[in-house]
C-alpha cells in the first residue's frame, strides 16, 4: 500500500520546499513592513477608505494589531486565496494530466484499483499542504518577536494547523475536477474558477439573504481573524472541512470508477 503516494510525495518534495520558502518570504515581508505601516498610516482611516466589498471580501477586521494585519495580508491573501487556488489547481492536474498524456493506461495496467490510485495520488498532496506550513510559522513567530509585536505561539501554530484541513478541501475540489475533465488544462481552469467562486460567494454573501450559499464554501470554516485576534480555535469547523474533503474524495472515486479512460 501507498507505493504511489510515496512515489508522488518524493516528486513533490522539491516543489513544496520552494513553496514553503516563497511563503516564508511573503510572511517576512508582511511582518517587516508592518512597523512602518503602523506609524505612518492611520490604519483605521485606511480601512474606512477601502470600499466596503473589499473589506468584506478580504475579511479585514483590524490592522491595528499585527494579528489583524497578518490575518488579512498574509492568511487571507496568502493562504485562503493563493494557496487554496494553488492546491485546487495543482490537484486538478493529477488525474486529468495522466489521462491527457496517456500515462493512465500504463498506471492502470498495474494491479491497483482506480479507487486506490485516486486515493494515493490525493494523499501525496499532503506534501505541499503540510510543507507550506512548516517554515512560515517559524518566520511569523520569530519575526513578530523581532519587531516587538509578539504573537502567542499557540495562535501561530493554530492558524497554520487549521489551514491544513482547509487546503485539503481545496485540493478535493481540484481532485473532483481532475476526474470530471480529461484535459488537464480544462480541469485546472474549472478548479480555479470553482474555488474562487466559492471564496467570493462566502465572503460577499455573508450577512445577506443568500448567506446559506456560502455554507458549501471551505472558506467559511477557516477563520484566521478568530484565531489571531480572539485566540478561538474552532475545531468543529476543522471537522466540517475534513468531512468535506472526505466527501469530495469519495465522490471523485465513485466517478472515476465509472468513467472510460479516454
Amino acid at each position: 500500500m501507498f507505493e504511489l503516494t510515496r512515489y508522488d510525495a518524493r516528486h513533490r518534495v522539491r516543489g513544496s520546499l520552494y513553496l514553503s520558502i516563497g511563503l516564508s518570504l511573503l510572511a517576512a515581508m508582511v511582518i517587516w513592513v508592518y512597523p512602518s505601516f503602523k506609524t505612518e498610516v492611520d490604519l483605521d482611516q485606511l480601512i474606512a477608505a477601502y470600499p466596503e466589498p473589499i473589506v468584506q471580501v478580504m475579511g479585514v477586521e483590524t490592522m491595528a494589531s499585527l494579528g489583524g494585519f497578518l490575518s488579512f495580508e498574509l492568511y487571507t491573501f496568502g493562504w485562503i486565496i493563493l494557496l487554496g487556488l494553488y492546491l485546487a489547481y495543482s490537484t486538478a492536474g493529477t488525474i486529468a494530466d495522466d489521462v491527457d498524456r496517456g500515462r493512465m493506461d500504463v498506471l492502470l495496467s498495474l494491479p491497483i484499483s482506480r479507487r486506490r490510485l485516486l486515493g494515493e495520488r490525493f494523499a501525496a498532496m499532503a506534501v505541499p499542504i503540510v510543507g507550506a506550513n512548516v517554515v512560515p510559522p517559524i518566520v511569523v513567530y520569530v519575526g513578530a518577536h523581532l519587531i516587538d509585536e509578539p504573537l502567542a505561539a499557540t495562535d501561530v501554530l493554530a492558524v497554520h494547523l487549521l489551514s491544513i484541513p482547509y487546503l485539503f478541501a481545496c485540493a478535493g475540489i481540484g481532485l473532483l475536477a481532475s476526474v470530471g475533465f480529461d484535459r488537464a488544462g480544462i480541469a485546472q481552469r474549472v478548479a480555479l474558477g470553482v474555488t474562487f467562486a466559492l471564496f467570493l460567494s462566502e465572503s460577499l454573501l455573508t450577512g445577506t439573504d443568500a448567506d446559506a450559499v456560502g455554507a458549501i464554501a471551505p472558506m467559511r470554516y477557516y477563520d484566521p481573524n478568530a484565531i489571531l485576534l480572539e485566540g478561538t480555535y474552532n475545531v468543529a469547523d476543522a471537522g466540517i472541512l475534513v468531512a468535506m474533503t472526505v466527501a469530495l474524495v469519495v465522490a471523485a472515486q465513485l466517478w472515476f470508477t465509472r468513467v472510460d479512460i479516454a
Partner: protein
Amino acid sequence: MAAIELEGLTKEYGEVLANDDVTFDVERGEIFGYLGPNGAGKTTTIRTLLGLLSPTAGTARVLGQVITDEGQLLEAKRRLGYLPDDPAFDETATGREALELHASIKGDARSEELLELFDPPLDREIREYSRGNVQKLGLVATFMHDPDLVILDEPTSGLDPLLQQRFNEFVRAERDQGLTVFFSSHILSEVRKLCDRVGIIRDGRLVTVEPVESLLDRSGKFVRIHAAESIPKQAFEIDGVHDLEADAGTGPSGGTEYVFTFTGDVNELLERLRQYRLLDLSLEEAPLEEVFMRFYDGEVRDSDTDSDGANRVVAGGTGGDDDV
C-alpha cells in the same frame, strides 16, 4: 480455459460501433496477432480487456477473470503485462524511478535480464527519451514481473529493425516457456514472423480467426513470368490466377512480363507454361499486405451477400478447433 475469451464484446461511441459483437478466444501458450488497419477497433478491444473502457454489451475474461468486475480484473492484472500503443511514463522521473514504482506495486522478477535485451537510458529523465527508448522502457515494464499473459498494442512501433528482431526472438522464446501473447499490429510482415494465429478486424467487426499458415496458403503465390514471346491470354485461364497483368517489351531482352497472384495448383500452372519459352520465372510467397487487401476486398463482397452472422460463425469455429 483460454487466456482471453471475448464474448460478443461491443463498444459503442454514440453512433460509431468501435467494436461490434467481437467473439474469439486466445489460447494459452500461443502468440495471437490481432490485425487490422488503423482505426479498425484493435485498440478499443485491447483497452476494454484492460478495463480502461467498459463494454456497451458483451463481456470478456482475461486469465479466467471477468473484466467488468474490478476485483477480478485486479487479480488478472497481477499476472498480466500490458504495453499500450503509445506508452507514456512520468516525464520528470528517470527510467529507473519509473521501473522502481512498477516493481514496488507488481514485483520484479526479471528486470535485470530484460534490461540487457532492451536497454533504455535508465538514469536519464524520461522527458529526454526518444520514442524508441520509451518503447524499450515499456517492454521492460511489461515483462518485469514475469506475467503469464502479455497484451501488446503495436509493440514494435518505434523500435529499430535490430531491436524488432531481438523482440521477436524474445517473444518466441517466452512463448516456448508458456507465455501467452496477444498483440495488435497493422504491420503484416511482423505478424507473419511471429504469430501462431491471427484475428482480423475491420470496422469494428471480427472478419476471421485462423492459423497464420492457412491465411498464407489462401493468399497463394506471387508469380512473375518473363516470356520470350507473348503468351495467349487463354493460357492463363486456369483456376487460381488473379489480377493478371501483362507488360510487353520489358527489359533489354524484350519479351513480355506477366505478373499475377496464384492460389491454384503450381503443377497445373507449370504444365500450362511448358510450351512457352520463358526467360525467367519466379514464385514468391505473396506479401501479407497483398493477402490482407485481398481478404478485405473479399470481405467487402461477401458482406453484401452473406448475413452478418456467417463470418462470426466461421471465426468462432476456427477458434474452437484450435483448442490447445
